[in-house]
């Protein structure tokens, strides 16, 4: 079964963030760069990527409070049809729609709503990441 197979990729342990290529499927497939973040609940994608996927975040039925360093704000919570990372795909993945600052240089954040579908191993000693 494919979902039991393991993918291993190397990363630079000296980089301040681990950036992964994330393929999000909706009305189109959009490959975005996301920072791996195991400390938060939902994948975060920007408004305009949500729109090109065919989502309508401005009329989202569900909004949640997002706690940030600068306070709490309401953000749309929506379902992504599928999300693929390193060849591993999860379906119906919850995502919040929110723009990161431009100088983050990534499109979004890869969070637990995707990661909890898999086993993730981060080996900082040897500089590799495994997803199975």
């Amino acid at each position, binding site marked *: 079964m494919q979902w039991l197979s393991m993918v291993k990729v190397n990363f630079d342990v000296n980089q301040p963030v681990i950036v992964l290529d994330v393929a999000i499927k909706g009305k189109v497939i959009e*490959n975005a760069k996301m920072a791996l973040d195991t400390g938060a609940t939902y994948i975060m994608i920007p408004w305009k990527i949500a729109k090109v996927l065919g989502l309508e975040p401005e009329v989202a039925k569900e909004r949640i409070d997002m706690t*940030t360093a600068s306070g709490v704000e309401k953000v749309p919570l929506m379902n992504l049809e599928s999300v693929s990372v390193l060849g591993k795909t999860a379906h119906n993945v919850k995502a919040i729609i929110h723009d990161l600052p*431009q100088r983050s240089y990534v499109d979004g954040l890869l969070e637990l709503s995707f990661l909890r579908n898999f086993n993730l191993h981060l080996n900082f000693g040897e500089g590799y990441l495994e997803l199975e």
Partner: protein
Amino acid sequence: MNIEEIKRIYKDEWILGEVNLSDELNRPVDVEVIMHSKNRDEVYDALEKIRDKKHLCTFYTGKIPEKGYAVAFYGKG
């Protein structure tokens, strides 16, 4: 055009491209550049207007983050 070539030609820019070929890990390997800019918002504006493409990508070609910057993600207040 392959990703390394794009990074070389459009150094430190945001790219909007159509993905012609991905590898087995869903990573784009051959991309046709539709738009490039130093300003991410211009690339996102162009992305929103795309109607006739099936597989798109956005990415920054420079170092993430820039040298001298640390990263802390937070929302706009």
